[in-house]
């Protein structure tokens, strides 16, 4: 149980990051502006007649996923690589902690920091939105918070694991930004490219069904898909919630989102903790 000591120390340390609170300030402003514009002009920005809390949730999920991914990178990329580069990890590992304790403690501590910032941002943003809509629906909000927290845990795990594979912060930065670039910005091109090659260097009129799960591989896509799974009624009614596949197959169900999130939880954890446990510091 010694990871609790690491998590406590790490939370105290990382919560003082100035970059974290700067990002949070931007997020709070953005989410208030978005909530306001959705509540006041649902037709214009949301494309629906009736503004609802569910619509608001899906409307904000895009900015939330961007905030979570960027903040996770800022808060976590140095989690282990930074301590190795500076040498503070020697103080920690001279104490009776296994490498796995340190890894888990880091995950818990940094998740705590990110969740705190996220909670502040969401309470303000969604609070303003609910107030403006004049309605409060606890069930979708709680489900939204649950999926968002899961998404935050997944992103922290990914970035801490990248950080655990190296003793150099510049390599950790490259790894984390590379991950973000590939999976969050460029990923749309990847299924397209695969289809292009598979189809004999030309594009078919319609994308084949099997590209759907491939499209859901980025954590943020899986996050939105998971929201769809838990809030299907709202997703149908809301703009931006329309990621449903439009055909029936076991791999096209929205629950796939949770499978993908689980994948991003387990695989980085396994690779990161293995690499860290076997490294010479």
């Amino acid at each position, binding site marked *: 149980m010694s990871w609790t*000591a*690491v998590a*406590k120390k790490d939370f105290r340390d990382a919560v003082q990051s100035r970059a974290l609170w700067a990002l949070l300030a931007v997020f709070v402003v953005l989410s208030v502006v978005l909530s306001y514009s959705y509540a006041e002009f649902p037709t214009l920005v949301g494309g629906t007649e009736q503004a609802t809390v569910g619509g608001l949730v899906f409307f904000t999920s895009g900015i939330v996923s961007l905030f979570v991914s960027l903040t996770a990178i800022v808060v976590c990329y140095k989690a282990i690589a930074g301590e190795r580069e500076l040498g503070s990890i020697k103080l920690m590992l001279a104490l009776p902690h296994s490498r796995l304790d340190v890894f888990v403690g880091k995950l818990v501590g940094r998740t705590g920091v990110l969740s705190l910032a996220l909670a502040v941002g969401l309470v303000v943003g969604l609070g303003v939105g609910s107030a403006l809509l004049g309605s409060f629906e606890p069930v979708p909000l709680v489900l939204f918070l649950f999926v968002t927290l899961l998404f935050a845990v997944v992103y922290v795990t990914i970035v801490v694991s990248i950080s655990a594979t190296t003793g150099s912060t510049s390599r950790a930065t490259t790894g984390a930004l590379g991950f973000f670039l590939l999976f969050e910005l460029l990923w749309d091109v990847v299924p397209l490219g695969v289809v292009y090659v598979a189809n004999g260097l030309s594009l078919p009129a319609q994308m084949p069904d099997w590209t759907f799960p491939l499209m859901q591989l980025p954590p943020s896509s899986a996050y939105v898909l998971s929201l769809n799974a838990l809030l299907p009624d709202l997703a149908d009614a809301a703009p931006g919630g329309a990621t449903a596949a439009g055909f029936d197959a076991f791999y096209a169900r929205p629950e796939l989102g949770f499978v993908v999130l689980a994948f991003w939880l387990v695989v980085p954890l396994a690779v990161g903790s293995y690499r860290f446990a076997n490294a010479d510091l």
Partner: protein
Amino acid sequence: MAAIELDGLTKHYGDVVAVDGLDLTVEEGEIFGFLGPNGAGKSTTIDILLDFVRPTGGSAAVLGHDAQRESMAVRRRIGVLPDAYHVYDRLTGRQHMEFVVDSKDVEADVEAILERVRVLEAADRKAGGYSKGMRQRLVLAMALVGDPDLLILDEPSTGLDPNGARQMRDIIRAENDRGTTVFFSSHIMEQVEAICDRVAIINRGRLVAVDSIEGLRDATETTTTLTVTVSGVDDDVVATIRAHEDVTSASLAGDQLAVTLGPDGSKFGVLQAIDAAGATVEDFSLDESSLEDLFVEYTTPGQAAEPGESQTQAVDPTAADPTATDSTGGDR
């Protein structure tokens, strides 16, 4: 049971040999100095004891536990002041101590320990603003939490002024009196000489000598040189002195007679002999090679390390041979 037992310990980084077949036993209750120049493999050896680094050959045991397989058991019972560490800039001194108390799951009077190392008045300031000496004292305080059975201190005087270094020695002695074994590394003979029961000298990853301070001192006395300013000396007098039982060599240059003495040779006896041979001793000076000289001799490439008829266990004379191992890498 030995506090530390190294058996053929070896660590390669690619082609670079940092530690090369080290055999060493540190007994419980001693203050043991681990001496060598920068890059000799001291920190790598300590890193292996703490399982920061895994050996490529041989084994290390600390307090009867294998340093790799049973590292947690080892680290529960030791206190460590590592080399090239960094404190958590955003945490206060007190929060550092709380982290150690939580980690070791022990009861400790944090204030009393901070007082002892003289950082109590800065306990609630962030450690990032501490001076180098204060950080060193804070980390020493962290090492003292939970009354460890063994203290491992890597270059403990780094960043300390002479006063701080003396306080560090006092704390080391006090802990040792309490029954704690102390293992500390240094590249400065003087610090080791002042406090250690026994010393190991390593160079280029190999053990060069292990002995008590007295043993090392005996070894150095073989090279005592007496320079006597004389008048009335001719070749017969020089020959007479050369034949004296305590003298290993004598030579005359102008009015300077240089006499090298054997082990336990009486300097006074030689001066009397010069006088008795009919010459006049006007002045004399002594050049007793210090432990520092011995250390330099052992660890400088190109100079043969032949400590003569000493009791010191000269482990491997080839260790001083510059062709033996080409590079030992940095102080890892």
